[in-house]
């Protein structure tokens, strides 16, 4: 099932290691010399240059570790990710507690360079290393009658300040329709830039659904349930008026509190320009058919 999708961003678009390691230092140096022009110094022609690893690791929403964008970077290091066990249950042929290697060994880890669009109207481009979720679902055997897949994030209260403060209801849960889960774009990612996944990015294994807002791409997964009914999801439970089950990136449907028409790509500095948000985050050709006949302003 692997290799069902070809990157529209090539490996050449990936920032070379030496550059992503120190681009911010270069930026800071330029700014210090007063040489930063409006729009930032490093805008690729197509605007699709992946973000640096530093950017990807220092600007995160992971409310278990606090509400601030840099809180996960500061606090997530204490999360215990070894050993890691994932409970697979529900309408599957081979339920049980799987170690990470039991679940993933032998499956193809691919490089996938995806746009990542947060519901808060910022975005990144991230070179993931991951396995198609479909491959993993095939390994555990999806049964007749399965219509949804539910996911759950680990809870380690003693190291999770957001859990202690109950900033939202935990454990964080998410879900996909089975056809979304089986789609070739949908990954379970285990690395970024061929580096192991940092804790703040959802180590050791996380979902990546690039045409949906980032909060769908649940981190640090400990439970995968294949089910018949639409499962609850954290943000739609916390605020059903603002967040729905689908959360497809859609520039025409605003969040009640802000516009979704444009976004700011992280990394452009203080004079960064906004750019237009793309329907389904630029994956319209691949996924629009999944929602034929659905009113996307209603199924948010």
């Amino acid at each position: 099932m692997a290799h069902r999708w070809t990157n529209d961003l090539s490996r050449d678009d990936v920032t070379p290691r030496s550059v992503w390691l120190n681009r911010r230092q270069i930026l800071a140096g330029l700014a210090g010399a007063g040489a930063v022009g409006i729009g930032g110094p490093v805008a690729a022609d197509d605007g699709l240059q992946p973000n640096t690893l530093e950017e990807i690791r220092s600007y995160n929403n992971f409310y278990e570790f606090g509400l601030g964008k840099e809180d996960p970077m500061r606090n997530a290091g204490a999360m215990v990710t070894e050993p890691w066990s994932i409970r697979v249950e529900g309408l599957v042929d081979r339920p049980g507690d799987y170690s990470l290697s039991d679940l993933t060994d032998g499956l193809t880890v691919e490089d996938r360079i995806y746009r990542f669009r947060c519901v808060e109207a910022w975005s990144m481009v991230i070179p993931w290393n991951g396995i198609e979720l479909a491959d993993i679902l095939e390994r555990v055997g999806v049964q007749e009658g399965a219509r949804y897949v539910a996911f759950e994030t680990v809870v380690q209260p003693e190291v999770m300040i957001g859990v202690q403060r109950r900033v939202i209801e935990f454990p964080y849960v998410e879900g996909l329709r089975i056809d979304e889960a089986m789609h070739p774009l949908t990954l379970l990612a285990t690395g970024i830039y061929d580096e192991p996944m940092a804790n703040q990015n959802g180590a050791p294994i996380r979902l990546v659904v690039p045409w949906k807002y980032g909060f769908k791409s649940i981190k640090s997964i400990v439970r995968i349930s294949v089910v018949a009914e639409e499962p609850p999801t954290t943000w739609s439970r916390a605020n059903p008026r603002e967040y729905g089950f689908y959360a497809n990136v859609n520039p025409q449907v605003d969040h009640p509190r802000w516009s979704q028409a444009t976004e700011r790509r992280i990394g452009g500095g203080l004079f960064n320009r906004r750019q237009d948000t793309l329907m389904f985050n630029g994956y319209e050709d691949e996924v629009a058919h999944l929602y034929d006949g659905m009113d996307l302003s209603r199924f948010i």
Partner: protein
Amino acid sequence: MAHAMVVRINGGLRQVPPGVIYALGVGWAGWLFWRGLTGDLGVEPINALERAYGDIAIKLMIATLAVTPLRHWTGLNLLRFRRALGLACFGFVLAHLAVWALLDVQVVSALWDDVVKRPYVTVGMLSFLLLVPLAVTSNDLSVRRMGAASWRGLHRLTYPAAVLAALHYLWIAKGFDISAILHAVVIVALLALRLRGRTRVQMAR
């Protein structure tokens, strides 16, 4: 003992010119902007700077509102600094607004859309509009021209402005944001203290 200390602090404060507040405010705002420019506010400096200016503004608003109760309850006299604190607050509100308009939203039509369509922007803008006449009349000439009573009446607008600012902060929060809640609690408490003080004065008549 405590009283003696307050007297000494008050004496010390009399040596400090209120202009220090303006210098500190401008320096602080400039330093934050420089940090944003050089990458020291993280990888998304626009949002960070916008929030930092807004956060300082609401804290200065609380400080301004606290001057009278502090004097009443502790004897600590910061009255000489109140105008400077209020104007510094307004300066940070302006900076917050400028970052929002010029660096964050960037498009004029989108600015107006936000003001009319997003309640948290609407209340933020209302709070700002209430502060404008207060900033404009924060000088000796205005106090003389308006007369003390009507000047004081006008400047009671700080309370609705502060409540709207607290609401603005609460409304952007996602999840249970203790910081936004604490700011709102302090502002409501200061307002309650003020109302209680007024009732007591009226009852004493």
